[in-house]
């Protein structure tokens, strides 16, 4: 018997130990895999070639004096022939593109003609708004979109940080810009180039997006894990890959179709976690939902813009502005009242990649007016006619406003806001809403009843930037919790941990109660028939 035991021990003990060790190794390997971020189609910072390919300062054509900005473009196109064709086809140039909207057909949509609930729209005020256009001279409808030398190459390609467009000058640079110096120092666009417009949209830093702002020029991992200066230090175009001046990525404030998008999966694949349960979430939850737990993490973003309070002047009849406790504009005579917020928890919506827009000539049918609306719902599982991909839960910044409209024609109104001089009927100079509305709608050749009021509006901005380090991402119980979960507002589906079904719960309670009653009946039976019970017999003995 003893020999048999020793034999078994000799065989099984080593096997047991080996199995344990192997399991441990597998676990360690799995842990290691989880630690390593799986990436495709991406060159890490350590392996990037940062060597300058072309030294523009050696080109003779760039050594001369440039009379004006158009001449710089002429010089650029002298070597980079035909590039203007690519530029002129791009939405960055046209500020519009053709989009198919369900029920509306092909619509030409863009900054050129679509209203928002920030500065409302550019029409009639082009000379100031086009400080963010990649061109020179768009001051009104007469701008020539077919003239190549109207293209501003420098705003995107300047590497000196000295190039700056003049305020209210239709996109021309400031007089003190040394065009010769800038032209000799050009290269691939960096964050500063994109940021000069995309960080400052709406008239100030981080006003519009909430997840794009000046702090991201030099930021920590906590602000943005991709752009962290001490980390991967990625520029915008590393995600927004560009070919022939066609920049991928789009903004649903102005776009409607599910095309030309930038996705996390393009580098991180569809199974990035090394964990099946987490990877399964990708079917219905956007990566951004867990990985952007807060936005406006460095500076505040505008959450509410109420134009109806604009126009209050001080005792001397001058426009005024007041700041809130954090130093953000709280009130401006030219624009009204604002509410800002930082470290904002996003709102969550189902989104299938399609958006709709309230066009300026469309009747308003419901209030608050949805300036844009994101399509999607839980039941949209990718099999419907609209999209081949399912709706996913997305984090969204919702900007709420109150802006001028025509209550008789029931349409939004484009007021004329800006002019260099007073007396032209612009609101920012003359503070007369009626006149500004008349001028703006007349400019667009659209009907205006002569009556105006203010209407509540909402605008939806899906979040994509300011991705947090993984340790700060949402955890399971941020959503799968009974009370105050992140997804409390999405009520059209069953979420384990959050939702409960009365039938199942009653059945469970019934089972527990039945078990207790069963035990009690059994106990009573045992007590009644105590003398025959073995336990009693044993105790007596």
């Amino acid at each position, binding site marked *: 018997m003893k020999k048999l035991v020793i034999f078994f021990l000799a065989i099984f003990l080593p096997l047991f130990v080996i199995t344990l060790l192997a399991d441990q190794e597998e676990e360690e390997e799995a842990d290691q895999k989880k630690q390593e971020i799986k990436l495709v189609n991406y060159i890490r910072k350590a392996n990037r070639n940062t060597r300058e390919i072309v030294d523009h300062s050696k080109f003779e054509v760039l050594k001369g004096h440039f009379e004006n900005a158009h001449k710089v473009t002429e010089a650029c196109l002298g070597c980079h022939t035909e590039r203007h064709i690519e530029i002129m086809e791009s939405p960055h140039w046209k500020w519009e593109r053709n989009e198919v909207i369900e029920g509306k057909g092909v619509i030409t949509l863009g900054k050129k003609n679509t209203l928002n609930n920030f500065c409302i729209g550019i029409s009639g005020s082009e000379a100031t708004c086009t400080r*963010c256009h990649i061109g020179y001279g768009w001051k009104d409808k007469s701008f020539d979109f077919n003239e190549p030398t109207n293209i501003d190459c420098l705003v995107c390609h300047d590497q000196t940080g000295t190039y700056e467009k003049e305020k209210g000058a239709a996109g021309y640079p400031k007089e003190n810009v040394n065009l010769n110096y800038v032209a000799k120092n050009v290269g691939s666009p960096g964050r500063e180039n994109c940021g000069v417009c995309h960080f400052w949209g709406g008239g100030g830093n981080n006003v519009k997006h909430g997840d794009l702002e000046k702090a991201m020029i030099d930021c920590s991992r906590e602000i943005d894990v991709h752009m962290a200066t001490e980390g991967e230090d990625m520029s915008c175009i590393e995600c927004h890959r560009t070919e022939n001046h066609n920049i991928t990525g789009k903004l649903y404030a102005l776009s409607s179709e599910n095309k030309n998008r930038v996705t996390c999966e393009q580098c991180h694949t569809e199974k990035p976690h090394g964990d099946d349960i987490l990877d399964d979430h990708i079917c219905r939850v956007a990566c951004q939902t867990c990985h952007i737990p807060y936005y406006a993490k460095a500076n505040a973003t505008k959450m509410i813009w*109420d134009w109806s309070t604009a126009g209050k002047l001080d005792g001397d009849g*001058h426009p005024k502005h*007041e700041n809130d406790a*954090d130093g953000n504009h709280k009130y401006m005579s030219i624009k009204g009242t604002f509410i800002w917020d930082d470290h904002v928890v996003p709102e969550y919506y189902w989104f299938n990649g399609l958006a709709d827009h309230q066009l300026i000539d469309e009747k308003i049918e419901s209030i608050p007016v949805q300036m844009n609306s994101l399509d999607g719902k839980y039941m949209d599982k990718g099999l419907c006619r609209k999209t081949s991909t399912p709706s996913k839960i997305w984090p969204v910044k919702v900007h709420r406003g109150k802006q001028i409209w025509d209550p008789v024609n029931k349409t939004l109104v484009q007021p004329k806001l800006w002019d260099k001089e007073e007396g032209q009927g612009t609101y920012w100079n003359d503070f007369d809403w009626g006149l500004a509305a008349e001028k703006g709608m007349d400019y667009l050749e659209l009907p205006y009843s002569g009556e105006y009021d203010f209407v509540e509006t909402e605008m939806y901005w899906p979040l994509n930037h300011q991705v947090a380090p993984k340790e700060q991402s949402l955890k399971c119980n941020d959503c799968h919790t009974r009370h105050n979960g992140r997804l409390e507002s999405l009520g059209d589906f069953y979420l384990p941990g959050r939702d409960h079904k009365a039938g199942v719960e009653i059945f469970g309670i019934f089972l527990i109660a039945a078990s207790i009653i069963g035990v009690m009946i059994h106990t009573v039976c045992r007590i009644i028939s105590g003398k025959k019970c073995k336990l009693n017999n044993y105790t007596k003995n």
Partner: protein
Amino acid sequence: MNRLINLIWIMSLMLIIVSCSKEKQYATADEWVAETQLGLEKIKVEDLKKKIDDFEMIYLLDVREPNEHYPGFIPGSINTPGGVLIFKMQNDDFWESEMAYTPQKEDKIIVYCKKGKRSVMAADALKKLGYKNVKYLDGGFKKWELTYPLEYDEKLDQMGGGSSHEEVGGC
């Protein structure tokens, strides 16, 4: 043998008492706030608005710093910064200067800050001072102004300059 067992019992008891008496330490301020708020009552901005509209007798205390209070605060609130709050509560001169009676232990008190963390600690301090009806405003002033953007008071004259004519904004 019995003496040894008794000794072990006494030592164990002492160990438990020492362990329990050691004050709990928190890794982060947020952790401290999260635990503290469990024992406190909060009020939603909608309910506070109703109380204000109904002229209910409450002490509404803004525990933010003065430079945060002056640009915008909930109408009717008194600025008692968190650092001095507990010392102001029984200071008759202070309440007289605010044209209010000194709060009594049974009075209804609602405290708020920017987003609701500082007010949790302030409410906890007031409870420890014996105030029985203390609540903190859930989401703080930020939640209030996001819900009622135009319902605020300001004391810009206290900021040494008031509004400015400097040209700002515009696109």
